[in-house]
């Protein structure tokens, strides 16, 4: 009886081998995104773009052989202490290339593990310059914080005519702190003044920070924080009757944030990568897919608004496929060697890398929230010469 059982167990173990035997070969792409924690909402939306692209284009021809593309998710938990184990998971899964992450801190925290394993990573929305600085394996398809900060500072100073900005960032968060530092530099160069404060991780009570901004007489409340914090800031601002405009970076570009501002008087202005409506074909396809998959719809915050991060996920996936094709092999080192010269025409525009591995971007979208409908509306496309 025991022998019989052992035999059955062995057969059961071998079953997947048989099942795969007659299938096409598989190439693995790692999805290095937070699915939980403060940035969980954003990470899920970014991963949705990748998943949708995978549904649209499930296979890729590499060196004359058709491969099935398998996405390997790894949750970095939005935290730098969980990021290494998520990166190691992807390394041990032998992914050819990884995509992510939402949040520059976790991208930096996991970076070395990918470098050691010679696996290239394509950052989708991690905008901190340090992500790609000083290494040859990290690339990115989005713009950088110094660029974004210049856009924001110019917009705030010249278009909104503000003189004093109150900045609030999360302690120890590379994205928040980096963007605020660049913004301060730019804004002070334009003749404005800046007051900066920090809040510790897991803060829920922002009322005193909002009061501070009002007391200082700031014209703008700049908080490029993660979605979880920004929704709370907006709601507490609404309860306080906060009259100062809230300004944010690309992290705030989420329907969750727009929902939070719905029915309030809080004005929110952000810069971002993409504006819904810029590419009809992508928008309608993505919405149809979201509505056909209840889990995807939940991960998108319950409605079918297109977030810019999803678009970046979508473009990043095609960038990865283009790199695999150029490499002619699913070997990660070959993909890394091929990546610098890859270029595609993505939904968010033409994407090519500069010598650091950063996408060459010259414009950003400025958006604001329509407080009645809870939707993002396009303000302007800001370019920096």
């Amino acid at each position, binding site marked *: 009886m025991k022998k019989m059982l052992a035999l059955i167990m062995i057969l059961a173990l071998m079953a997947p081998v048989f099942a795969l035997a007659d299938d096409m070969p598989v190439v693995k792409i790692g999805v290095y995104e937070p*699915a939980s924690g403060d940035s*969980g909402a954003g990470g899920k939306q970014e991963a949705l773009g990748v998943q949708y692209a995978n549904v649209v284009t499930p296979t890729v021809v590499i060196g004359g052989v058709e491969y099935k593309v398998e996405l390997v998710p790894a949750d970095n938990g939005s935290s730098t202490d969980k990021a290494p184990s998520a990166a190691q998971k992807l390394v041990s899964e032998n992914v050819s290339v990884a995509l992510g992450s939402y949040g520059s801190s976790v991208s930096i925290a996991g970076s070395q593990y990918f470098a050691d394993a010679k696996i290239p990573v394509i950052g989708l929305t991690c905008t901190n310059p340090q992500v790609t600085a000083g290494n040859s394996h990290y690339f990115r398809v989005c713009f950088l914080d110094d660029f974004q900060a210049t856009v924001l500072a110019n917009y705030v100073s010249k278009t909104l005519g503000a003189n004093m900005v109150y900045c609030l960032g999360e302690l120890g968060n590379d994205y928040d702190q980096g963007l605020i530092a660049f913004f301060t530099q730019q804004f002070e160069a334009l003749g404005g003044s800046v007051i900066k404060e920090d809040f510790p991780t897991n*803060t*829920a009570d922002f*009322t005193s920070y909002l*009061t501070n901004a009002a007391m200082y007489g700031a014209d703008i409340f700049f908080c490029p924080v993660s979605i979880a914090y920004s929704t*709370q800031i907006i709601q*507490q601002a609404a*309860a*306080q009757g906060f009259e100062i405009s809230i300004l944010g970076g690309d992290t705030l570009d989420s329907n969750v944030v727009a929902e939070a501002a719905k029915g309030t008087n809080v004005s929110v202005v952000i810069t971002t990568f993409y504006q819904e409506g810029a590419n009809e074909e992508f928008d309608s396809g993505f919405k149809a897919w979201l509505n056909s998959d209840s889990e995807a719809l939940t991960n998108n915050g319950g409605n079918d608004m297109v977030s810019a991060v999803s678009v970046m996920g979508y473009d990043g996936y095609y960038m990865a496929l283009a790199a695999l094709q150029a490499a002619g092999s699913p070997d990660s080192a070959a993909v890394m060697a091929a990546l610098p010269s890859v270029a595609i025409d993505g939904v968010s525009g033409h994407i090519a890398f500069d010598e650091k591995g950063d996408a060459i971007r010259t414009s950003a979208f400025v958006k604001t929230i329509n407080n009645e409908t809870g939707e993002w509306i396009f303000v302007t496309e800001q370019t920096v010469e």
Partner: protein
Amino acid sequence: MWDTVFPYLLSGISVGGQYALIAIGYTMVYGILRLINFAHGDVFMVAGIVMVYIAASGVPLWLSIPLVLIITALVGFLIERVAYKPLRSAPRMSVMISAIGVSYTLQNLVLYVTGGLNKQYPTIPWVSETIVLGAAKTKLVTVVTPILVIILVAALVTLINKTKIGMAMRAVSKDFETSQLMGIKINSVISATFVIGSFLAGVGSLLYFTNYSTVIQTSGAMPGLKAFVAAVFGGIGSIPGAVIGAFLIGIMENIIKGLDVILFKSGVITKPLGLATFSDAFTFALLIIILVVKPTGLFGEAATDKV
């Protein structure tokens, strides 16, 4: 000057009241079992999540609030029965470890159920309305909180001093074994303690999340820790101590966040010092100072441990 300080004071009193409701749970359980119930902050968080799901399922508000309180009390009761009661005769350290285990279990359970995303807390009408108080605009809940806390504490103190179960609680907290010999059903007294503590945490969560509107599995950690500090500050084991400690912590924390502005406005400093960064560090530094200088806290009884 008053106009500058007032908004911070208001935030402080409000959040202090919410800490107070959690701190009572810590202090009561400690008084009776000599156990720091580390899962208490998570019971508070679970109350928030339960409210989110009950409201989402379409239950009317007048029913959902009592339902949340009952479920929270039940959660507290079950935790005690499952994780602490079997360890009644085990060393105190084992129970403490079990409490930490419960804390992580609850967090991960909620992580699994919610998928790790922030859940929007339902709006409770009336208390969510914005009111103007002098120089500050705030939600009505900010004003309701301290009043409700005082009413609840008065009721609790009456319960402990005037009723039979209250007398049993006092007896058990004085001497565990002797009260057992005197015929007190120790298990039902302990259960009652957990039910009351969790019920108050449930009320606290209603007030807290009405103000701070989103719930995630880690939402209970910080308020839980601060309420614990408040309980120690006030003298763990003492209910009035926990309440006063919580109000003091809440107020001081918010004053520190606004200290830059207050000093700036009154002309003491010309450039902000960035003191707001240290609001949490301050709370925990206070814990250390209290433990070093006056380990029994503001209102704690002097330890009379007989060997």
